[in-house]
């Protein structure tokens, strides 16, 4: 507090504690601890914390993380994308159409799908930037358009809304394992042999560990979180993202290419949705017209739990990742805790509301904003 007399708050020194408390991910950290304590107390011996259980909520959290990273950066740059869920369904269906129905090699199907989906993201961004319409409305339109195609195309070509056989079509492909494989099998085999994790008791996989590897889905989630965090906090582009969402006019006046930043963030969000979709179809082997329903809101919720502002200009990728973790653990944990299933949404709503109120409260106290 030595420089108070200079009157410039930007170079004012702050205590380390206060600085730590000002981080947007504080709420996420507190929430994560609270959630684990809660389920540790109520669901400890329910199988939630054995190997299978941990894998279960980790995979669900990793799914949320993948789309939350895209949604987080986009939200910080001041925009929304409501078409994420439809994009997931659409991307999966495109891969099925190209790779199974048309019989293209799987790597071409995956690459072409990425190109189409990122192009849709760019189109979203272009329309928002050029027309000045709220992204809420523009991407709501995309939500319906993409979902419509996802039902119409397979219904017309194949007379059904679920196309299977993707796993078989992807066999021996060089690109597909990047999304569908599992890594670390030897480690898990060893853990199984040592009796640290359970093994299958019967069937043709008898003796194999119940968890046989880390799915690439989780590797993608961690990779995207690290990339997003680095981009946002360690690069000039990251500052541009904050500036575009904080005050777009001020940013423009100081030479930030706001339009380009926003369009690129829409493309990145579409990219994340496509990663989600490719991992999903590679794991499950089929694409369905109902995949990804409401996922856009789940992404936004994770980001908001993680401390980002809906109005843009403030937030953190680490926070969003923690938000995704909280969301995943709560969602699956309620099942483990044996909560009556019809009350599931009530719990989810209460916990989300509590997290967001807590975040706002902490931020107001710390930043002194009214």
């Amino acid at each position, binding site marked *: 507090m030595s420089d108070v007399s200079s009157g410039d708050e930007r170079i004012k020194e702050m205590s380390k504690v206060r600085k730590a408390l000002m981080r947007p991910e504080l709420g996420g950290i507190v929430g994560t601890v609270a959630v684990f304590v809660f389920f540790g107390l109520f669901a400890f011996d329910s199988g939630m914390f054995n190997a299978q259980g941990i894998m279960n909520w980790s995979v669900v959290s990793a799914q949320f993380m993948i789309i939350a990273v895209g949604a987080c950066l986009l939200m910080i740059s001041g925009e929304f994308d409501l078409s994420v869920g439809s994009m997931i369904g659409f991307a999966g269906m495109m891969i099925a159409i190209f790779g199974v129905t048309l019989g293209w090699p799987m790597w071409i199907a995956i690459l072409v799908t990425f190109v189409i989906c990122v192009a849709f993201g760019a189109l979203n961004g272009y329309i928002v930037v050029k027309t000045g319409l709220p992204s809420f409305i523009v991407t709501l339109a995309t939500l319906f358009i993409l979902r419509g195609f996802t039902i119409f195309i397979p219904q017309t070509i194949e007379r059904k*809304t679920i196309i299977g056989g993707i796993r078989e079509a992807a066999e021996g492909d060089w690109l597909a394992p990047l999304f569908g494989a599992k890594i670390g099998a030897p480690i898990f085999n060893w853990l199984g042999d040592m009796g640290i994790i359970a093994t299958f008791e019967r069937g043709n996989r008898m003796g194999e560990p119940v968890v046989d590897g880390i799915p690439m889905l989780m590797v993608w989630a961690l990779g995207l979180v690290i990339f997003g965090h680095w981009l946002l906090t360690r690069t000039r582009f990251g500052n541009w993202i904050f500036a575009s969402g904080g005050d777009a006019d001020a940013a423009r006046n100081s030479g930030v290419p706001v339009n380009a930043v926003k369009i690129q963030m829409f493309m990145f969000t579409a990219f994340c949705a496509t990663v989600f979709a490719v991992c999903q179809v590679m794991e499950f082997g089929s694409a369905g017209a109902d995949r990804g329903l409401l996922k856009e809101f789940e992404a936004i919720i994770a980001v908001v739990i993680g401390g980002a502002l809906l109005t843009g200009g403030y937030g953190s990728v680490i926070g969003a990742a923690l938000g995704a973790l909280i969301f995943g653990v709560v969602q699956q944990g309620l099942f483990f805790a044996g909560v009556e299933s019809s009350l599931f949404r009530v719990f989810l709503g209460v916990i989300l509301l509590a997290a967001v109120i807590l975040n706002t409260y902490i931020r107001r106290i710390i930043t002194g904003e009214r």
Partner: protein
Amino acid sequence: MKSTMRKLLLTAAIAATPLLAATQAAAEGEKYILVSHAPDSDSWWNTVKNGIALAGEQMDVTVEYRNPPTGDLADMARIIEQAAASQPDGIITTLSDYDVLKGPIMAAVDSGVDVIIMNTGTPEQAAEVGALMYVGQPEYDAGLAAGKRAARDGIESFLCVNHYISSPSSAERCQGFADGLGVDLGNQMIDAGQDPAEIKNRVLAYLSANPKTDAILTLGPTSADPTLLALNENGMAGAIYFGTFDLGEEIIKGIKAGVINWGIDQQPFLQAYLPVVVMTNYHRYGVLPGNNINSGPGFVTADGLEKVEEFAGEYR
């Protein structure tokens, strides 16, 4: 700030305690989990919930019901994985998409959890994933039987009101009906959506665009109830041949009033009740029926409606 946090946590914990205690106190006997593919909005599954509640009470076992809230089948796969991780004695699940669900189900079977397939799926698929048995109504065959019945009644064209287009078993019912009639399904199946007002208006629109349609096939109360309203509105009630899958209160009234010619009862109560009973006896005494159980199809017409009417939507 700290005290606020503590208060919030305490409130959450206190609010949760009675619910958790309530569900765990019943866990004396075996524990079973029933996983369905139905979204929350599908009221038909209430009968299933009542079925497992009754079976759980009579057999002194705990049965939990779980479903993906939006009907997303990929989410359902996660729920099955989660159910297996919580180490119940058995899982009763639908098999609405073989590709998506076979992995999680086989993993559950291999990790020592017994599985019975109910409702959707085929007996062959149930055997393939290592399930003990299949309890349900083979969908295509039921549609086919209904189509043949309608063909005998002189029907040549129809409208299939599909309120759950993303589930392959729904389309199979329509396809079976078309094959039973001996006509091409073509554009006679519409994606009606889940919203009653939308379903009603789509049916109205289709019927005014295709006034020569002989018959209507609905796939359950979700599509049948709005269709009844639509037919009352355009005056075709009673004039057009109307068959439906599944039963519900409005459907029973429709059958009684002569608006609906027949309802196909697949008896979901049995699909939920029997697996619990079968599995409990298997786990207690090692006895298991040697075959799959067909819970339907049974055609419900205006004759002998009394019992059906009394329990429609509850046990029927």
